[in-house]
Structure formats: structure tokens, C-alpha cells
């Protein structure tokens, strides 16, 4: 299914197919960044770490082997990359003597990330909303507008906004009910060695 598609792409990548490499990159990039962000101090470091990881994967493509899924491989690789980086930072700090600024390297349990197929499903569900409802929902979630601000922007009543947001949430609940266990299982994954 989707997993075999990934493996096919991975095999092509091993043979130097840059297009396959790009497809995998695009598919997993933001999910891996969100995951890396749990380990590192900021989004820029997370993006750099993911990019470095992909470059390394390309450089070592001929000798790579995956035994589980491509997804599992990527997430484990970025985790190792982040842990190495954290270890390196620790050594530097120790070397510099007193640590002038403390930074917590433990994974913040409140900070999650999304699986790739969940991202796709959410994207689809929001796309499937009727146009007016979609626009209202986007203004709320993407722009962070309050109901009054949305009502003013679109020249509609607050009651309309309230109703539409309620229906949008109901729709999402139906669409995403298969994924309601997702956050938990991923958190367990990130604690395993």
C-alpha cells in the first residue's frame, strides 16, 4: 500500500534516482522537522538537522539498508542525529566551564509531532469543507482570529461563525476518528531505544 510505495522509492534512491529522493524528502520533511524540534532548541536547528540527515543519506545511499519501514528508518535516523548533536553540545558546554545558560534537553512530553499520513488526512479533511466554512476555519486556525474578527473580516454575523466552526469541528471529528490514537503511539515510539 503506502508502505510499499515508500520502499520502491527507497530502492530507486539507492540506485541514485534523485527524483525518488526528492519525493521521499518532500513527503517526510515537515513531519521529521516537527519530531526533531522535540529534541533541539529551535526550529532552525531542527530544519538543519533534518537537511543534514538527508544529505548524509544521499551520500551513503549505496550502503543503506532498511529492515522495517522507510518511515521507521527516517525517524530513527533523525533521532540519532539529534541525540549526537545534543551530546556534542553537552561536551562543548562542559569544556567551556560553567554553563551560563541552562537548556533542558529532555523531550518535553507536551510537544508532539504529526505522522505523515495524518498530515495528509487533515489536509484532505479541511479541503473537503464547503468553501465558506473552510474560509472561516482557516481564518481562525491559520490567522488566529477570534470570532468577532472573523465576522468583521467576512461581513457576516458572529452567530454564523459560531455555527460554521461547530460544524467544521464535527466534520473533523468524523474524518479523523481513525487517528485518535495516533498521538499516544508516537509518543511511545519516541521513548523506545
Amino acid at each position, binding site marked *: 500500500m503506502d508502505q510499499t510505495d515508500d520502499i520502491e522509492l527507497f530502492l530507486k534512491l539507492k540506485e541514485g534516482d534523485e527524483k525518488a529522493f526528492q519525493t521521499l524528502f518532500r513527503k517526510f520533511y515537515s513531519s521529521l522537522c516537527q519530531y526533531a524540534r522535540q529534541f533541539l532548541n529551535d526550529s532552525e536547528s531542527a530544519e538543519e538537522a533534518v537537511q543534514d540527515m538527508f544529505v548524509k543519506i544521499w551520500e551513503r545511499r549505496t550502503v543503506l539498508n532498511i529492515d522495517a519501514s522507510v518511515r521507521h528508518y527516517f525517524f530513527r535516523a533523525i533521532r540519532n542525529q539529534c541525540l549526537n548533536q545534543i551530546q556534542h553540545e553537552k561536551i562543548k558546554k562542559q569544556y567551556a566551564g560553567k554553563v551560563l545558560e541552562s537548556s533542558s534537553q529532555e523531550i518535553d512530553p507536551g510537544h508532539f509531532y504529526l505522522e505523515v499520513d495524518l498530515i495528509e488526512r487533515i489536509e484532505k479533511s479541511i479541503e473537503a469543507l464547503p468553501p465558506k466554512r473552510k474560509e472561516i476555519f482557516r481564518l481562525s486556525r491559520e490567522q488566529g482570529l477570534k*470570532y468577532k474578527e472573523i465576522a468583521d473580516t467576512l461581513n457576516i454575523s458572529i452567530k454564523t461563525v459560531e455555527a460554521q466552526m461547530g460544524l467544521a469541528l464535527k466534520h473533523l471529528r468524523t474524518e479523523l476518528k481513525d487517528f485518535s490514537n495516533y498521538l499516544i503511539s508516537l509518543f511511545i515510539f519516541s521513548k523506545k531505544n
Partner: protein
Amino acid sequence: MSLSRMKEKNEISDKDWELIAKSIYDENADTATSEQAVENLNLPVDETEIKKVLKITKQVNLFYDQKKYKAEDAWVKVESRIRKTSSGKQTIFRQLLANPFMRVAAALIFAALLLVSGYQFFLNPSLQNKMLEISASNQVLNTFTLPDGSLVSLNSNTKIRYPEKFTGDTREVTIEGEAFFEVKPNKNKPFIIHAGNAQIKVLGTSFNVNAYPESKLMEVTVETGRVQVVNKSAKSVQTNELILTPGDKGTLIYESNSLMKSTNQNPNFIAWKTHDLIFKATSLDEVIQDLAKVYKVDIRIADPNLNKLLLTAQFKNYSLDFIMEVIETTFKIETQKLNGQYILKART
């Protein structure tokens, strides 16, 4: 589907959905308080159902959060990085070979080289290994991997040469410039760096090598592990080699051909790479030396009285302008920028 399941679904009326949505999206931005707000509604809805709804809102929030990681922009960067090692020198060959005369000449030279290298290949199998050269011109080249998994970062105007594979019983590279190494431990295959007249041998460790050809000296500063530095052109055996441990610095002065060990006093020796600067009661003249090196600008102190002012601060990846502002405010100094040079003087 059982009847009780159906009942659960029907229990959330559209009106209830409105109330739930409003308490999450209108009144509370933060998920933590919205959980409480929804619970406070005391709706006739199953608790597990409420929990599932809250989970979904969390997922949707994460969905919008992950959008900030733009794969397209990142791909451009990654693509140019993977193209870097296979350099554009091939186009020069293509131009030359367009000329038929050149093609014949090239073929003859190639055949001759083949004979010679074939002969040498028999004698020394490690020659089948292609030599790679990476250079950083104006910018710092951050962390790339050598064939054994060791990591290197290059400062600007730095070149490194290494074979495609580390065959044989050593791992050898040559550098000109400045690089920070993180060498993968391998007791059986020492890592050797050729830098000018010095040869630096490591087992597995992290350290900085500064060996610009125009410089008067070569410096190795060790962060972790053990490093051996050898002066290849030493006349006597005593000043020939040093063993360095973390905190040590080895210096080879070209003019006097002397190799000496000292304690590293500067915690900012890899700030060129990390942009992480630490000053602990550091005098201002030393501070601007470090800043000048890291940000590659000219900085001068006009008033000699200011030289011995002490600064204690840590800057993790801040811009030079920000750091200058901090210095200005701390010491009541003003900075003038003249022809790209920063000049510090006391505020009048």
C-alpha cells in the same frame, strides 16, 4: 455497530459542537486551558468522546504548526549540497574535447596515463581510490561527513583533500585553512591530518585545527580525546612531537620551527563554526579579536582606556550588531562604522 455506540455519536448535537468549538477556538488559544473550558461546559457527552475531540484539536493545531517547515525551500538547499561534491570541472573537459585534435591528444594522453597508473595500481592497490577535494570559499561549510563517518566543518578559505574510501591501516586527510573535526573512534585505524609541516594523529576525538598557509603558525586545540601532533620538518627529536588532551593547545611556529604545548585560554576557539561566544571577565581587546574572527569584520578600539574593560556574557548565535549594541550599552561606548570597519570609542 452496537446501539450504545450509535447513541454516543448522536449525543453531540450541533448546538453542543458549537459550544465546544467556541470554548476552544474563540476564548482560549492555549490547549491546556481549553481542555478545562470544555469540561466546564458540563455537556451531556461521554468523557472519552470529549477527550477524543480535544485530541483532534491538538492534532489540527500541530498540522498548522508543521506548515512552517517548508519542504520546497529546504529541498533547494539539500539539492545544491548533494550536487556540490560532483563539481563542475566536467564542463571544462567537454569544451576541450569539442575540438577533434584535442580529442586525439586526450585519447593518447589518457592511454599513456592508463599504462602508468595500471603499473602503479599493481604495486599499490590503494591508488584505485579517487581523491576528493572540498573547499569552503567565503563561507563556513558546516558539518559534512568523511568516508569513515567522521564529521568536519570548514571555516572560510579552507580546503580539505581526502580519498573516496579510507583503505589501508590509516585514515589520512590534508587540510589548508581551518577545520573542526569530530573523528570517529577506531583504535585500529588512526586518523591522520596533514596540515603544512605538521602531522596530527588522532584515535577518536574532537578538536580544531588552524593551519592557514599564509599564517605564521599552525594551532591545534583539543576539545575531547587525545591528539598527537608531529612536526614533520623538525631537526631534533625533542621538539618533534606533542600529546594533547582536552584543554590543550599545540602550536607550530614556522619561523622558528618550534612546537609547543600550552593551555587553551579561549573558550571561543570554535565560535567560527557555532557562533556561540562565551566571555568570562574577558578584556574588551580580546573580545573584539574574537568577534572580528567570527564575523569576519575589522574592529578597532580607538581609546586605549577601553582595552581593559571586562565583559562577562554569552551570545548564542546572535548578530554582530546585537552584540555591539550590548557592548555599547554596558560600557557607555559608541560604535562608528567607517568603510566597513567598526571603531569603538568612549561616549562623550
